[in-house]
């Protein structure tokens, strides 16, 4: 036994390709991070930057024929979980890693009762009887504050509001008390007031259960309120990773800077919002080298080579992948 506990979730050099027009393109490149118990790590970036693909790769849920992992390793509690047999992975999903998806409207099965859907992981992973699993489902619904849980256990998803459905998703993901929770844009589809409630609930559950959380979001406001560490992704690359306050105080990668400048804030007038020029190139058209160079104001000749992710502070907690701004501390 090592004296240092293994991280709850460890991702090393994960590289994932997706297929478009019969060609495989790297959509997640060399992504590494660790999450320890009670920690929230946020993956931030625009749509198509590879955040969700990273999550699906960890869960081995890439659609076959469309996505494939070509490199790297994922481990949970020190146990390797990437590249293992499907039957083995089924025992990990829902049991040791729970996952909450973005769309509460479509992510629940419309023809199965909410109670059964929450109870289901307990049937497979904990060998509970149906009755015991359903009893536990009521407790879980209470835990995520669904009012009158006992009466609603036989209701169907369409009888719940969006916020309540997302609570159902959370209850389902936490049914088997996993150590890791992956939340893929858990609040994006919800009203702002409901977003705050769901985030508060997640934070509270994390504290009480000591969860390690991987939060995927494009919303920097959400990041600021809950994350301990942030990884900014662009074009499948992690371009900057830093502890939470650090990123906002000292954004270094041009993309991070641009992202923060594009964020509406109450302490700035709306004229100062600076949208990032251009669009994320399609995977097939990604520039060689630094993938942000086509939109970057600081672009130089050496950007045609891919910059490494280098530490920029003495403690080695703040990393940036940029030739220009990511110099040594």
């Amino acid at each position, binding site marked *: 036994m090592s004296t240092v506990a293994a991280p709850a979730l460890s991702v090393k050099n994960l590289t994932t390709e997706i297929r478009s027009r019969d060609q495989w393109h790297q959509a997640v490149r060399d992504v590494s991070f660790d999450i320890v118990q009670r920690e929230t790590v946020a993956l931030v970036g625009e749509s198509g930057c590879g955040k969700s693909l990273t999550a699906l790769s960890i*869960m081995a*849920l890439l*659609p076959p024929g469309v996505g494939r992992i070509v490199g790297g390793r994922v481990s949970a509690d020190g146990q390797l979980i990437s590249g293992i047999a*499907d*039957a083995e992975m*089924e*025992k*990990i*999903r*829902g*049991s040791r890693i*729970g*996952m909450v*998806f973005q*769309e509460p409207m*479509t*992510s*629940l*099965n*419309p*023809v*199965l*009762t909410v109670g059964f859907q929450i109870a*289901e*992981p307990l049937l*497979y*992973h904990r060998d509970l009887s149906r009755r015991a699993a359903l009893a536990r489902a009521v407790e879980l619904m209470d835990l995520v504050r669904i009012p009158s849980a006992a009466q609603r256990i036989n209701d*169907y998803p*369409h009888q719940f509001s969006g916020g309540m459905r997302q609570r159902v*998703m959370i209850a*389902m*993901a936490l*049914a088997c008390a996993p150590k890791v929770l992956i939340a893929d844009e858990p609040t994006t589809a919800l009203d702002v007031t409901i977003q705050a409630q769901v985030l508060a609930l997640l934070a509270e559950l994390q504290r009480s259960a000591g969860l390690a959380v991987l939060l995927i979001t494009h919303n920097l406001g959400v990041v600021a309120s809950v994350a301990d560490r942030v990884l900014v992704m662009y074009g499948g690359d992690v371009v900057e990773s830093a502890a939470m306050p650090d990123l906002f105080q000292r954004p270094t990668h041009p993309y991070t800077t641009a992202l923060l400048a594009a964020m509406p804030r109450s302490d700035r007038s709306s004229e100062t919002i600076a949208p990032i020029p251009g669009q994320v190139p399609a995977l097939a058209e990604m520039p060689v080298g630094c993938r942000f160079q086509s939109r970057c104001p600081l672009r130089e000749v050496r950007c045609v080579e891919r910059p490494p992710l280098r530490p920029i502070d003495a403690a080695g907690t703040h990393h940036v992948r940029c030739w220009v701004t990511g110099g040594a501390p």
Partner: protein
Amino acid sequence: MLRFIAKRLLFAIPTLLGVLTLVFFLVRIVPGDPALVVLGDQASPEALANLRERLGLNKPLLVQYVDYLGAIAHGDLGRSLTTNRPVMTDMLAVLPNTIELTLASLLIGLVGGVPLGVLAAVRRGGIADWLARIVSLIGLSFPAFVSGVLLLVLFAIQFRWFPVISAPRSGDILERLRALALPAINLGVIMIAYVTRVTRSGMLNALSQDYVRTARAKGVPARLVVWRHALRNVLIPIVTIIGLNLGVLIGNSVLTEIVFSRPGLGKIIVNALNTRDYATLQAMMVVFAFAIVITNVLTDLVYGLVDPRVKTP
């Protein structure tokens, strides 16, 4: 539940009334004097007048129409022009045979079509997918009377596994099933074709849905993701296709009954056609219209069972 059924039946009344009216006037538009048809051109004018009187044909059209509706409301479908027996009695005597045949082929369609469609969708391009394509091609392209004759030649005459004449004569269950087998398979293949196609495309759609990903993300075994999470959702289009095709099935059961010499509604119709028994034909059109309305109500009821979003009655 009962209220729902009552309501649905109530809503069916205008449809039925329309069908009854259409049938009534269609039969009247057909040129030729029914009395002449029955008695032949050698009949004396007195006899013809007598028969017209008995059939009510000398009354004004509107009165005939009201009489006709009144009789049907009392469950009186009239009398056969050839046998002079009440059509209702003859119809009820063979109705169980037709229902038996329809249900058996429906069962074959479900038992064969659902698993085939599911397997075809799960392993696209695999053996099941290939088989599904062949079976639906056969089921949809062979007319029921052609496939029926082929089945007879092969399994009743060549191999002698099943009787050539599928009229169940004894009450023996085994004998009855043997007589039912070939006609039921003949119709069942058509049903398998429809069910397989809709199951396959429904499953392909369902398997790409978010809720399937959710199920996998919580560690539901792959087998149950398919058969519980995805298939449950496909039951809805399956019920639809069955509801729609019950009419086709009833129509094909007429042909099948003829090919296999099986007593049933089909036989009554063909006999009536051969003998120009307009009264029986008119009555049978009414019976089929009722049958289709009833299957539609049943379909709606089943929707409530398979889809919780349909307001359960």
